[in-house]
C-alpha cells in the first residue's frame, strides 16, 4: 500500500512539473511590469502557456509567484499575507528592478525595498519593465528551480 502511494506521489510530481501555475502579486507597481506580465500570457506572440504555465486567480493554487513593484509601505502587510497563503514549494520571481533593489524608488520613505528582506526571491528579471521574452526567460528559470524543489 505504501509503495502504491509512493508511486502515485511520484507520478503526481512528474505531471505537476509540466504545468506550474503562475500567480501575480502587485506590490505597489506602476503597472508597467504588470502589463508586460499580462502580455506574456494574453498575446499569442509571446504565449507563456507553451511552458505549461497558466495564470491562476487564487494564491492557494499557485506554484510560481511573479512579484512586481517596490513593496510600498501601504501594501506591505497585504502582500506578506497573500504570500503566506501560497503553498510550499513555491518559486518567487521578481519582475522588474523595483522588487530587486527598489529601482527608481530606492531609499524612499514610502517603500520597503529591497523586497528580499521580507520575501525570499529566487529569480530576478531586471528591466523597467523587462521585455516579455525576458519574463519568459525568468519563468523558464523558475520552472527549473521548481522542478528541483518538488
Amino acid at each position, binding site marked *: 500500500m505504501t509503495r502504491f502511494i509512493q508511486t502515485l506521489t511520484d507520478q503526481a510530481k512528474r505531471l505537476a512539473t509540466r504545468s506550474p501555475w503562475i500567480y501575480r502579486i502587485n506590490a505597489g507597481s506602476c503597472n508597467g511590469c504588470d502589463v508586460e506580465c499580462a502580455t506574456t500570457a494574453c498575446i*499569442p*506572440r*509571446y*504565449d507563456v502557456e*507553451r*511552458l505549461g504555465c497558466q495564470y491562476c486567480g487564487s494564491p492557494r493554487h499557485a506554484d510560481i509567484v511573479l512579484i512586481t513593484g517596490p513593496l510600498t509601505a501601504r501594501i506591505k502587510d497585504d502582500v506578506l499575507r497573500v504570500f503566506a497563503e501560497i503553498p510550499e514549494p513555491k518559486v518567487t520571481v*521578481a519582475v522588474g*528592478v523595483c522588487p*530587486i*533593489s*527598489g*529601482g*527608481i524608488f*530606492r*531609499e524612499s520613505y514610502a517603500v520597503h525595498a529591497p523586497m*528580499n528582506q521580507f520575501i525570499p*526571491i*529566487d*529569480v*530576478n*528579471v*531586471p*528591466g*523597467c519593465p*523587462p*521585455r516579455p*521574452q*525576458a*519574463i*519568459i*526567460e*525568468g519563468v*523558464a*528559470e523558475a520552472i527549473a*528551480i521548481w522542478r528541483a524543489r518538488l
Partner: protein
Amino acid sequence: MNILKLFYRNLTQGPSTVAFPFGPAWTPPKLRGRIRFDLPACTGCRACEQVCAPGAIRFDKTPEGLRFMMWHNSCVFCGLCNFYCPTDAIVQSDDWHLAHPTARMYEMAIRELIPYTACSACGTKTLASAPNPVGVEPPFSAEEIEQFRHLCPGCRKKALEERTPNHAPTE
C-alpha cells in the same frame, strides 16, 4: 470567405508565436539593454552618475583611484548615461538576457577603476582618465589621448592651449 483567407494565411505563414525560449528571439536594433563600460574611454567627468535617476551608477574615490560601479539590478535602462557621455565610454547594448537566480544578484554589476598616475610633466598625482573631447578642434588623435592621459588637469590645459593656438576670431 474571411475564414478561408485566415486559414490560408495560417497555412502559409505558420504560427505568429515567436519561438523563444525554444529558439532565438528577434531584438529591435535600438533596444536599450545591458550597459557596456569602456574604461580607457572614460574621462571621469561623472556626468552619468549625475543623470542616473535610480542611482545605479556610482563613483567612489579610493586610495587606488576613481572607482566606477554600476548595478543592472537598479538600472532603469533609460539611456541618459549613454546620451550624456562625451566619449561613449558608457553605451547600452541590445543584450536583454538579464534574468538570473538571486544568488548571482551582485554579479550583475560593473566594477572598474580609473587608477591614479603621476603627471608626466609636473609629477603630481592625477587620474589616468581620457581627456574630455568636447569643443576640441581638431579632434584628438589616439596618440594624443594617450599623451593627455598622463597629464594633470593644469598641464592638460597648457598642452591644449599649445595645441590650438589662439586664432583671430573668424567672421
